[in-house]
């Protein structure tokens, strides 16, 4: 199930409160400013700083 547009419009990075990029096909949400990747697991975006990993590419 895809994330709703409404939800994607609302969510921001929990760290910088900036705009997020959604890559649902990869199960990832990126914050370009913080260079962080948040996972989407079982249709739930895990927007937790403790669980984010560095954006490498």
């Amino acid at each position, binding site marked *: 199930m895809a994330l709703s547009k409404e*939800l994607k419009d609302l*969510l*921001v990075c929990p760290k910088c*409160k900036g705009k997020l990029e959604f890559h649902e096909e990869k199960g990832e949400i990126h914050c370009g400013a913080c260079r962080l990747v948040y996972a989407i697991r*079982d249709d*739930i975006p895990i*927007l*937790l700083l*403790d669980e984010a990993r560095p954006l490498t590419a």
Partner: protein
Amino acid sequence: MSDRDVVDQFTRQVETFVASPHVNAEEPVRRFLALVLPRAGDRALDVACGPGLLAKAFAPRVASYLGVDLTPAMVEKARRIASEAGLGNARFEVADATRLPFPEGSFDLVLTRLALHHMPDPAHALAEMARVLVPGGRLGVFDLQATEDAVEAAELNAIERLRDPSHARTLPLSELCALAGRAGLSVERVDTVSLSIEIEDWLRRAFQPAEASEEVRRRLVPGPRAFGGHPVYRDAAGHLCFDSRYQMLLAIR
């Protein structure tokens, strides 16, 4: 206790938590509703929503209801319960109360129930809740209550932590109001309510080692202020009980 420990504890507790009288009792929720008075146009956020039990009372009375919790298992459970209850305007997501993934001024009403006492830094969480409120928006807090006596409050928290290591600290009403003030909110109304809790049932629901439960039993002997200022007594059936005290406040940004 780290966020990870809290998530582990609540992942184990999902099913018992849903069945717990402490989170399900109707009277405290009715009182909270009467204090908060949700409005039909409200975009509501429920912080640390657990399995989303507050949504049943509040979601039908607001425009949209979003519950967030640190524990993914709670979010999944909340989604299932809301869908079974036909709450079409309720959504549930994972978020940390101290780092909410929402822009400033996203909500008209923020609620948080039985959550602050799990947080090592409740001031930080309240400041985040204030940030996501629109100016004039309302914050409704419902939590356990400690007495204003520091010695009693310390004893209360020591027993609570023995029973549940994810317990950080229950606040007295004066401190809760002061924290709301420091978060830039003005306290509009407060209320308190008591609920009789059966001690053996309460201990069973926490899944703690037998020694911890034994230590709690040793400390909780009947007396008018035996549980950190709250009464411990035997009910008509002879079960050892205590009065759990709850405090609520409504504050305006």
